[in-house]
């Protein structure tokens, strides 16, 4: 579906993206993670035919992006990290405009608009002026705009930035729904843990180089060493502590500051599930939260290696 090989971009002598290669199959969600200035936006802008690479190739459905930009633009919906809207238009007029300039007939776009607005949760805002929407709503409107010409591929550059936690969850649900509709999505973020919940594949980029590109399951396998699990119980905490210490993969149990227990656990996710099941049978369980800090640690480790290599050069 999307094939990127040897993608490179220089701004004068500065290499913003260096020899990046990856591919994304149809229906997958590819998370593009990296710190600020890592080259995520430059890569996405090249994919969106808004920048010419200094080297390398991009193919969408076998169509070379640079040779057929109009054909490629028909296939993809792009949502930049910073974008503006036409404040003096109503929500439906805004979508009608982008539908028409994307090559669809006005009648077809008008038929699709109610469904699109329902999908992004703006069903009741159809006649509102764009000016009157909140930031989160504008973000969702921009997502609807990127879908208005029924693209097969979505390029979303940090779509969750600036959104409150509730809006982030809603956005994640919308993207999952889009995935179930067969859309291929490339989404960028600087938070690996956030993308790990959503994506099928992850690429970690730092200083313009793709440090890791793999299925999420593989990435998670790399971090599944000892993990910290927070547990809160209704009662019989001491009894639970003793029971936990008897379990094979539990290395340590200590009281948590919040009043519950913190368990150092060496098992993988399946073992965690089994432990949760057993605990729930024996005790009245309030909370069972495996720490997500490990993904962040992995991200830090990978980007640190790249930083060190850069410093040595």
């Amino acid at each position, binding site marked *: 579906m999307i094939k990127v090989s040897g993608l490179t*971009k*220089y*701004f*004068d002598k500065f290499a913003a993206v260096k020899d990046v290669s990856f591919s994304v199959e149809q229906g997958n969600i590819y998370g593009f993670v990296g710190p600020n200035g890592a080259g995520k936006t430059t890569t996405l*802008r090249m994919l*969106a*035919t*808004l*920048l*010419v*690479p*200094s080297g390398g190739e991009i193919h969408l459905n076998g169509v070379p992006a*640079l040779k057929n*930009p*109009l054909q490629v*633009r*028909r296939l993809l919906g*792009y949502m*930049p990290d*910073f*974008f*503006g*809207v*036409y404040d*003096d*238009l109503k929500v439906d*007029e805004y979508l009608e*405009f*982008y539908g*028409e*300039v*994307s*090559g669809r007939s006005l009648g077809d776009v008008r038929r699709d608009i109610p469904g699109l607005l329902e999908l992004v949760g703006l069903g009741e805002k159809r006649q509102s002026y764009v000016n009157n929407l909140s930031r989160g709503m504008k973000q969702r409107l921009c997502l609807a*705009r990127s879908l208005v*010409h029924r693209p097969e591929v979505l390029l979303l550059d940090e779509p969750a930035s600036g959104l409150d936690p509730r809006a982030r969850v809603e956005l994640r649900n919308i993207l999952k729904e889009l995935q179930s509709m067969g859309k291929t999505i490339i989404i960028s973020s600087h938070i690996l843990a956030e993308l790990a919940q959503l994506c099928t594949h992850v690429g970690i980029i730092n200083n313009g180089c793709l440090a890791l590109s793999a299925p999420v399951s593989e990435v998670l396998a790399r971090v599944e060493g000892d993990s910290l699990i927070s547990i809160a119980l209704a009662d019989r905490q001491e009894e639970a502590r003793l029971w936990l210490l008897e379990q094979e993969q539990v290395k340590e149990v200590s009281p948590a500051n919040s009043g519950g227990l913190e368990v150092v656990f060496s098992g993988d996710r399946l073992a965690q599930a089994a432990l949760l099941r057993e605990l729930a049978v024996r005790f009245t369980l309030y909370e069972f939260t495996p720490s997500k800090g490990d993904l962040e640690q992995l991200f830090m480790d990978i980007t640190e290696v790249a930083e060190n290599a850069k410093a040595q050069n």
Partner: protein
Amino acid sequence: MPKLKINPLLGKELRIRMRNWRTFGMISLYLLVLGGFAVLFFLSNFYSLGRGTSLAEVGRNLFTFLSVSQFIIVIFLVPALAGNAISGEKERQTIDLLVCTQLTPFRIVTGKLTAALSAVVLLIFASLPLYGFVFLLGGVSPGEVLKLFIIVLGTALLVGCWSLMFSALFRRTVAAIVASYVLLFFLLGGSSTLFILLSNIFYRTQGAVPYFLIMSINPLSFLGWLYPEFFRDILSALGPNWVGRNLQLWHLALLIQGAMAAFSLWAATRAINPLKLSRKRG
């Protein structure tokens, strides 16, 4: 019957423009200025009626006054109308979204240009009652009024082209509008000043040196189509060599300023094409 399909960009621009109070403010001010001066001009001529001046002559004078005033007002409005066309999209951060559609850079530029010119068409229509009053007095044919509208619209198109080019080249609307006015002042005032200086230098050559051709970059020379006698008088004063030929100054002006406009459109199209731009940079 095939359905008339307008550029969606033009539709959007018109919708946004018509929702804005500034459009109505601009039309009202334009009519107030044009109409106010027309009334004053008419009154100043009205008292000479019966003292050797006919009603048709007053009508003719009023038309001349209105045509030149309208021409100047419109060409000074065009940079303000077209100067923000593309730089406004850049400032609003909507240009990428627009470029990422099925619109080619050329269609984006022509859509924006048509939108700016549609405001000029609106101004022309709004001024029709004033010309109705001129017809009432007589001395002017409908053909002359039509000629005037073609000249105003055509000049607006040419001025609009390079205003749009500056809008595409500059990131800031203010810079684009200032650059457009600087060029406009140069073409209007600079060419006239050069013309006067050169005529003082080459006056004795009796037209052997065609220095007056500098006026072909002046948009005012298009009025030569409407008032050929005025321009003929100027040229005949310079020397006999250039009088009575089929080629008139406004023909040359059309050629030169048309080429300028075509170049501007090409430059604007290139400036908003990200694939052309970054090839140069990257």
